[in-house]
């Protein structure tokens, strides 16, 4: 065998490591930022690494059946597979290491792939029989129907504009025209940004996890390795969403520093919005997304179709 297969395996591992480290690091920073805003000291930014390592080393005593084993496995499958299909850098840097399966899938595939994990985890949570999990899942899925609409409208707008559905194609379009999609079709960007608030499940859209009333919802019956795997998958998924957003609206990133700057700034939007917000009820949250974000998304599509 030639070298290419080893490079792709190494690239695969490097991508996962990068995503994991950045995702967990951001998680720690969010805790710090939240604490400072609330005038607390807060845990150190590396606290989440300690938590995950500790959880991985724990053994689990009980189970409620097969689906409980499989739930976290589904979640990690979805997040890592999505990661494989996302271009991390936009081709001018060390593209080779992060190429993975970038050219084998497109946005619509990714939309579905990202849901796969939550549904799998929901099945695992379902088997535990915990009513909090079931309520959390019911709320989470309901809210998803809410934010997917402005999100799809935003995606449709930019896909029609660039006449491609592939993420690499969108990056190439932005590089070729030397612009960012967020300036090309600003309405779509706003709709996408508002949908992103829901996607990250920070307040006021933290209805599925609602720590105060649902004991963190779907995850409440998982501990030890299961929880660690779910946290890992959550961290990777956060990274995937951020990079996807940077790729399609901000022209991707040419090196890792730019990637970190862009994703971090983007990440602060839902976090800072969340820190100062109370929680919506589920139906309020759905109606919120079907209100202004959807209207802006529709205008964004019309803008692309009739004005550009």
């Amino acid at each position: 065998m030639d070298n290419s297969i080893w490079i792709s395996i190494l690239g695969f591992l490097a991508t996962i490591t990068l995503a994991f480290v950045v995702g967990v690091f951001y998680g720690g920073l969010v805790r710090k930022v939240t604490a400072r805003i609330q005038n607390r000291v807060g845990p150190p930014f590396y606290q989440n690494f300690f938590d995950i390592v500790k959880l991985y080393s724990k053994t689990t005593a009980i189970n409620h059946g097969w689906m409980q084993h499989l739930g976290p496995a589904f979640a990690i499958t979805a997040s890592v597979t999505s990661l494989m299909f996302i271009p991390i850098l936009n081709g001018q840097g060390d593209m080779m290491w992060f190429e993975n399966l970038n050219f084998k899938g497109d946005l619509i595939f990714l939309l579905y792939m990202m849901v796969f994990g939550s549904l799998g985890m929901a099945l695992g949570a379902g088997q535990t029989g915990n009513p909090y999990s079931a309520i959390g899942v019911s709320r989470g899925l309901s809210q998803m129907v809410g934010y997917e609409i402005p999100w799809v409208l935003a995606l449709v707008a930019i896909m029609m504009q660039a006449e491609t559905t592939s993420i690499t194609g969108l990056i190439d379009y932005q590089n070729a025209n030397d612009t960012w999609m967020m300036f090309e079709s600003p309405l779509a960007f706003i709709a996408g940004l508002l949908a992103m608030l829901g996607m990250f499940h920070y307040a006021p859209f933290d209805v599925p996890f609602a720590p105060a009333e649902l004991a963190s919802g779907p995850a409440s019956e998982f501990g030890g390795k299961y929880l660690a795997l779910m946290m890992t998958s959550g961290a990777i998924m956060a990274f995937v969403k951020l990079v996807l957003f940077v790729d399609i609206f901000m022209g991707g990133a040419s090196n890792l520093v730019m990637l970190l700057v862009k994703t971090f700034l983007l990440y602060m939007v839902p976090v800072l919005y969340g820190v100062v917000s109370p929680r919506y009820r589920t139906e309020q949250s759905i109606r919120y997304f079907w209100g202004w974000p959807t209207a802006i998304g529709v205008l964004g599509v019309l803008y692309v179709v009739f004005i550009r």
Partner: protein
Amino acid sequence: MNSLLLIILILLGGAVLAYLAKRITPMLSSIVSFLAISSATAVFFTMTSSTDIVEVNIRNFTLEFGLNAYSWLFGAMVMGVSALVSLYNIAYMKGKDRLGYFNSNFTLVVMAMMGILFSNDWISFFIFWEIMTWSSFLIIVYNGIEEGKIGTKYMIFSAVGGYAMLMAIVITNSQINSFLISDLISSFAGLDMGMQSLLGLLFMIAFSVKAAVMPLHVWAPRAYSDSPMSFTAIFSGLLSKMGVFGLGIVLISVFAKSTNSNIIVYTEILAWLGAITGVMATFYAVIQTDAKRLLAYSSVAQLGYIVVGLAIGTKLSVMAAIFMAVMHAIFKGTLFMAVGAVERQTGTTDMTKLGALVRKMPWTFVAALMSIIALAGIPPLGGFIGKWMLYESLITSDHYFLIVMTFLSSTAAFLYSYRFLFGIFLGQEEKEFENVKEAPATMVIPMMILAASLFFFGMFPGYLFEPIANSMEFLGMGQVDWSMTVLSNQWGDQVDTLSIVNSIITIFGIAFIFLGLKNRKKTRYVTTKDIHTGGEIPTENENLTYAVDFYKPFERAIEPAMRRKMDFYYNKFGNGLESLFEFVRRIYTGNGQTYALYVIIFLVILILFSEQIFL
């Protein structure tokens, strides 16, 4: 002997024998029906060829029976699924009443479907179409004709469709002097504009009834959910596809020849109706508490997507529609069979009562899980391929709001998908169902075969693309490009199914070994009462089930859309008709003197106006 006639004869004979066999022992009737359908399947897959043509000339018109690429694809689907369903049927119907009646109609429906597919002329098409309607009607009223007037509703709508088709056929003959389908296609361009629109409208009404397009769908949910499940697997999976089959011929072959530019308005309206059907039926599926009713609404919604694909009419969208039609037959058949198995083992399909059957019926759960993943359109199973192609075709053909509608309904489909699995198989364990056993092997095996085929077509969609491309070429769409594992759209964007499947299997395998296999031995199973409940220890009889009003918040959010059902308008229309009849009845009082008065009035009119009338 001609193989097509042989298939029809085997099935017809099977229907008669199934009725007679009941006299020996009831179960023999189901077995006869299975044997007939499976041997017809064997004949279909081994002996048929496109050269088998039967031609009958009666006076000055021709009746023709034949097989082409398009009908072969649908025939393969019908025969394959119904053979497996009839195997399932043996154990499912065991011990029920009137098996002869049920099984002979069951076989007759399959025969009628094959007859429709083989017909090359509208006369035999119509005859088999009516046989299909009648025999399915007889099965719908299997549980009693008074049961919610389901049968009546079905019959009324089928009659509307049937008359529309008959009218269209007669008009066709009066215009082109032939009943052959191919003659209609070739001479459609020669008809005048009004005639083209009229024919199109009539045929679309006729086929939309069976494909359950809004507003002609109101019969479907109850008819699907209240028939015996082994029939519903065919009813929702295959019989509704006959509407799709007809729509395919009309929308693609016939309309493509049209010179009338208004025809595009029709197809756009139909596409929007399909999308609205999809959204509304999905919303109704979300709020159901009965698993059968949930699946019934979901069938209507899925048919909505298929109609969208056919109506858009680009190469990719038609391919998507036919692919989804086949996939829908497979996964919805499996799901109805799974519900039937649950119903047989537990006696109920109410999701607020059931729960935690996954440990009792693991194989049924696996089959249901695979089908639900396909239904939700999640990769890597076959359902995803169809959804992907539909979205890509919509976006590349500038239907930007249709894509949002279809996306809304398919995202909302996650809700009922999860509800279905959670309500039946997951959640709190119930005392009532402690001793439930897995369904018998003859019921599980057909489900597993169909579920496995979903996985196969998700990995190698090319095996299905080939017959679809052939049939699209037959329909007149020209050469269609396809490849074994790579999907692509007009803009050149691609999805490689094989690398998706590989990636998912690899990562899932690693995680599975890490979690499942290592932890299974180390951990101990505990009941679902042994959970974290915020410090309180639940007692034995405490109810922790979360099943009633599962999606109440969602219901509140969509409440404005749900205020009126289509039934409401039909009832109003019915009431309006009734008051009209009431008025007519007042004229016929039944009193001799009134009639005498009418005669006198008539004579007076005659005398007064005789000059104007007779001159």
